[in-house]
C-alpha cells in the first residue's frame, strides 16, 4: 500500500536520523461505485453538526462515536462526506464540549494514514496546538493524543514545531509533584504530552526543539515514576532522541542510566525493549558503559537473551550487549553470566537485525582470550563462517570482525580454515563497500598469522595476491590501513612477497608514504619493513622516494609509529643510498633518542639502523682519504 517515500529537499534536512521511510497516503482500490452505508449515516450526522446549535452538535457527535470508527469504511466516509472539515472547524470554536466531542472522534480516526494526512492538509494541527493552551485538562489530553497520531509523518511533525507545539507539549510534562505519589490527573496529562512528544521526536529538528524547551530534566523526572503507562512514552522519547550526543550526555549526567537499568526488569516487554534500545544508543560512550556496569545492568541484559520470541526486544537487548561489550571490564562481567554461550545459540534462525547485534557482541567479546575458546566449544564458528556469505553490509562488517577475533587462536583458526573461511574472507575484498573491504582485510591479519601452512594457503587463492595489492589504490583510508597490515603479514612468506613485488607492491606502498595519519603510518611502515626482504626491494623503495617521508614519522608522538618506522628504516638502511637519504633527513639524531627505549624491538631496530648509517659514513670517509 505504501509506496517508497520521495521526500522533498526541505524534508531531507529535517530528519537525517530517521531510518523509517516516511509514509505516503495511498488509497486502496475500492470495489464498486456505490457509496457505503456508513457514508449515508455519517452524512446525516454531519448535517446535524453543521446545521445545529451546540446541543444538537453534541448529540450528533456522541452518536458518531457509536459507529465503528476503527473501520476504514467509516473513517473514509467521514473524509468523503466533508465531515472532517466540520470536525476541524468545531475545534476552532470556543465551545469546550464541542471541541471535546470532535477530538474524541478525530483521535480515533487519525489512526488512518489518509485521515491524518487530510487533517494536516486542512490545518487541523495548528488548531490542536492552540488547544494545548486550554485550561481544560481533558481537552488538552485529547489534543495531545490526537497530535501523537497525526504526527506520524514528517510534514506533520514540522508543522507542530513551526506553530510552537513542541514548547507546549513539553509544558504538559510540568506537574506539581512527582515521586511516589504521582497524582492520577497529572500523570494522565503528562502521559498524553509524552505520547505526542514521542511521535514528534522522530524528526531531528524536533529533538533539538524539545531540548531547547527544557524537556530533558522533565523527562528525567518522569523516568523515576513507576506507572508503566507513562514510562513507555517517556522512555520511547528518550531512546528516540538518544541518537543526539547532547541527549546521551544528559542521560548520563542526569542519572537516567540507573532508571533505565531498573526498568529492564519490568514486567512489560515493551518497556524493557525501549530501555534496552536507549542503552544500545547511549553505550557508544565509554562513561555510559561504565555506568551500566556500576548500576548492575549487565546481568538483566544477559537474562533477557532467554526471551527469544519477541524479536524486537531481542534486537534491542543484543544491541545493548554489543555496545556494552566494547569495554573490557564489561566483557569480563558478561563471562560471569555465560552471555557468550547464550549469544552463540542466537547465531541461527534469527532475523537480520538480531544477527547483526549478536555477531557484533561476539566480536567484542573476542577481546578476551577465554571467550574465543568458548565460542569454538559451543560450536559458534561454523554459523559465523556461514554468515560470511551474507549480503547485508552491516552484518558483514560485524562478521568479519568476529571471525578475525576468533582467528587469533590457532585452534579456532584450524576450524575456520577447514570451513573455507579464509577464502570467503578474501573474496569479501572484492565487495564494493569500503567498510566491508577494510573489515575483511583486518580479519585476514590474524588468519594469515595463525593458519597452518599459511603461505600455501594464501597462494591457493587464485588472483588473491593481485587483488589485495591492487587495493592499495583505494581512496578509503581505513581500507589502506587494513590492507597494509595484511600485506605486512603476507610478506613474511618469501614466495608470496615475490609475487606481490611482481604486482607492484613497492611503488604502491611508496605512494602512500606522505600521510599524517598515525594509524596508517604505523601499518605502512610495518608493510615496508617486511617487503624489504626480497630482491632489490630496498633499493626500489629508495628510488620510489619512500625514505624521506618515513624519516618524518619519527617526529610523531605515537610510540607504535616509532617502532614500526625504526624497523622499516633498519631494513632500508641495508642499502647505502638509503643511508645517505636518512642521514640528510636527520634520522640519526631522532633514532639516538630511541636507543634507550624500553621497547626491545624499537631499541634493536634503532641501534641497528644507526650502526648501518655509521658504517657507511666511515667507509665513505675511508674512500675519500684513502
Amino acid at each position, binding site marked *: 500500500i505504501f509506496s517508497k517515500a520521495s521526500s522533498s529537499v526541505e524534508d531531507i534536512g529535517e530528519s537525517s536520523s530517521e531510518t523509517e521511510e516516511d509514509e505516503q497516503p495511498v488509497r486502496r482500490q475500492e470495489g464498486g461505485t456505490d457509496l457505503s452505508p456508513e457514508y449515508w449515516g455519517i452524512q*446525516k450526522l454531519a*448535517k446535524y453538526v453543521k*446545521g445545529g446549535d451546540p*446541543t444538537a452538535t453534541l*448529540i*450528533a457527535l456522541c452518536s458518531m462515536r*457509536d459507529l465503528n470508527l476503527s473501520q476504514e469504511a467509516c473513517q473514509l466516509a467521514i473524509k468523503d462526506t466533508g465531515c472532517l472539515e466540520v470536525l476541524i472547524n468545531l475545534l476552532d470554536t*470556543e465551545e469546550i*464540549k464541542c471541541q*471535546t466531542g470532535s477530538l474524541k472522534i478525530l483521535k480515533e480516526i487519525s489512526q488512518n494514514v489518509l485521515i491524518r494526512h487530510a487533517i494536516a492538509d486542512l490545518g487541523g494541527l495548528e488548531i490542536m496546538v492552540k488547544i494545548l493552551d486550554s485550561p481544560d485538562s481533558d481537552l488538552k489530553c485529547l489534543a495531545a493524543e490526537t497530535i501523537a497520531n497525526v504526527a506520524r509523518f514528517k510534514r506533520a511533525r514540522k508543522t507542530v514545531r513551526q506553530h510552537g507545539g513542541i514548547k507546549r507539549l513539553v509544558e504538559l510534562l510540568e506537574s506539581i509533584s512527582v515521586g511516589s505519589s504521582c497524582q492520577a490527573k497529572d500523570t494522565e496529562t503528562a502521559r498524553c504530552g509524552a505520547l505526542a512528544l514521542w511521535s514528534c521526536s522522530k524528526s531531528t529538528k524536533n529533538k533539538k526543539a524539545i531540548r531547547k524547551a527544557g524537556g530533558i530534566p522533565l523527562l528525567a523526572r518522569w523516568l523515576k515514576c513507576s506507572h508503566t503507562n507513562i514510562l513507555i512514552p517517556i522512555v520511547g522519547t528518550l531512546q528516540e532522541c538518544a541518537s543526539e550526543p547532547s541527549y546521551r550526555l544528559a542521560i548520563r549526567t542526569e542519572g537516567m542510566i540507573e532508571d533505565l537499568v531498573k526498568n529492564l526488569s519490568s514486567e512489560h516487554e515493551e518497556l524493557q525493549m525501549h530501555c534496552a534500545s536507549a542503552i544500545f544508543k547511549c553505550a557508544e560512550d565509554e562513561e555510559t558503559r561504565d555506568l551500566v556496569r556500576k548500576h548492575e545492568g549487565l546481568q538483566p541484559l544477559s537474562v533477557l537473551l532467554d526471551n527469544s520470541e519477541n524479536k524486537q526486544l531481542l534486537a534491542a537487548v543484543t544491541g545493548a550487549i554489543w555496545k556494552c561489550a566494547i569495554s573490557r571490564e564489561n566483557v569480563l562481567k558478561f563471562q560471569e553470566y555465560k552471555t557468550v554461550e547464550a549469544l552463540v545459540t542466537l547465531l541461527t534462525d534469527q532475523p537480520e537485525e538480531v544477527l547483526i547485534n549478536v555477531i557484533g557482541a561476539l566480536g567484542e567479546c573476542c577481546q578476551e582470550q577465554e571467550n574465543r575458546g568458548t565460542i569454538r566449544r559451543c560450536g559458534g564458528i561454523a554459523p559465523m563462517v556461514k554468515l560470511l556469505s551474507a549480503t547485508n553490509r552491516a552484518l558483514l562488517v560485524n562478521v568479519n570482525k568476529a571471525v578475525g577475533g576468533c582467528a587469533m587462536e590457532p585452534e579456532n583458526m584450524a576450524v575456520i580454515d577447514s570451513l573455507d573461511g579464509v577464502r570467503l574472507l578474501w573474496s569479501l575484498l572484492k565487495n564494493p563497500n569500503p567498510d566491508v573491504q577494510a573489515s575483511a582485510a583486518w580479519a585476514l591479519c590474524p588468519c594469515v598469522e595463525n593458519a597452518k601452512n599459511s603461505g600455501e594457503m594464501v597462494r591457493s587463492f587464485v588472483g588473491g595476491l593481485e587483488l589485495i595489492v591492487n587495493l592499495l589504490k583505494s581512496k578509503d583510508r581505513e581500507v589502506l590501513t587494513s590492507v597494509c597490515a595484511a600485506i605486512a603479514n603476507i610478506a613474511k612468506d618469501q614466495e608470496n612477497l615475490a609475487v606481490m613485488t611482481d604486482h607492484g607492491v613497492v611503488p604502491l606502498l611508496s605512494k602512500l608514504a606522505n600521510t599524517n595519519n598515525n594509524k596508517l603510518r604505523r601499518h605502512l611502515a610495518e608493510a615496508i619493513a617486511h617487503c624489504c626482504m626480497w630482491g632489490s626491494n630496498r633499493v626500489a623503495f629508495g628510488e620510489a622516494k619512500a625514505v624521506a617521508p618515513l624519516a618524518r614519522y619519527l617526529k610523531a608522538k605515537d610510540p607504535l609509529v616509532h617502532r614500526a618506522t625504526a624497523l622499516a628504516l633498519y631494513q632500508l638502511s641495508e642499502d647505502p643510498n638509503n643511508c645517505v637519504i636518512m642521514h640528510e633527513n636527520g634520522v640519526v639524531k631522532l633514532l639516538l633518542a630511541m636507543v634507550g627505549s624500553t621497547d626491545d624491538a624499537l631499541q634493536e631496530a634503532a641501534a641497528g639502523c644507526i650502526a648501518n648509517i655509521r658504517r657507511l659514513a666511515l667507509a665513505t670517509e675511508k674512500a675519500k682519504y684513502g
Partner: protein
Amino acid sequence: AAMSKKGLKLLVDSLTRSAKHFNKSEVECLVNLFDTLVARSSSQFAGAGFDRTVFRDTLHSAFGMTDDVVLDRVFSTFDRGNNGCITVVEWVEGLAVLLRGTLEEKMKYCFAVYDLNGDGYISREEMFQMLKNSLLIQPADEEPDEGVKDLVDLVLKKMASTYLLVLFLLQDYDHDGKLSFADFEKAVREEKLLLEVFGPCLPDIK
C-alpha cells in the same frame, strides 16, 4: 426582614453544613446577595424570598443562561417548596450544586431540569420540546420537524438502548421510549459530554 447577628451566624453555620461545597465566608456572601435580591423582588412574600423573575434575571446576568424553558425548569428545581418563592436555604443549597456539585449531584439536577413534568422520566415529547429549536438550518425539502424527531431518536438510541433491551428481555417492552434516571446516569457515567444533552443548564467554566 432584618436578622439579628446571632440569627445570621446560626443561619450561616447551618447552611455551610447543608450545602457542603461552600465555606463560611462564601455562604455569608451568598446570604448578602440573597438579601439584595429580596429587596429587588416584589413584596408578596414578605421578605421570605424572591420570585421567578428576579431569579431568571440573576441567572441570566451571572451565568449567561438565556433559554427560557431551561430557566423555568431550573427555577422549579431550586423551588423545592414549590411555592414560587426561593428561600435563602433553597438559594444557597441550589447554588452549591450548580457551581460545585459532584457528578452525582449534577446528574440528579440535570435530570430534574429535563424532566419537564416531574414524573421521573424524560419522555419523547419532552425531548422534542427541548430540542425543537436546536436545528438552525433545515433543508428545504424536508418536513421541518423531521430533523428534530431524528435527533430525539438518536438520543434514545444512545441513552435508552440498554433500558429497552432489558425491558424486552423482561417481556415488558415499552415502545414509548423514555429515559429513566438510571438510564441517564449510566449514559452520563460512560460519556460525560451527555450531562447537558438537552441543552445547557449549568454555568460555563468561563
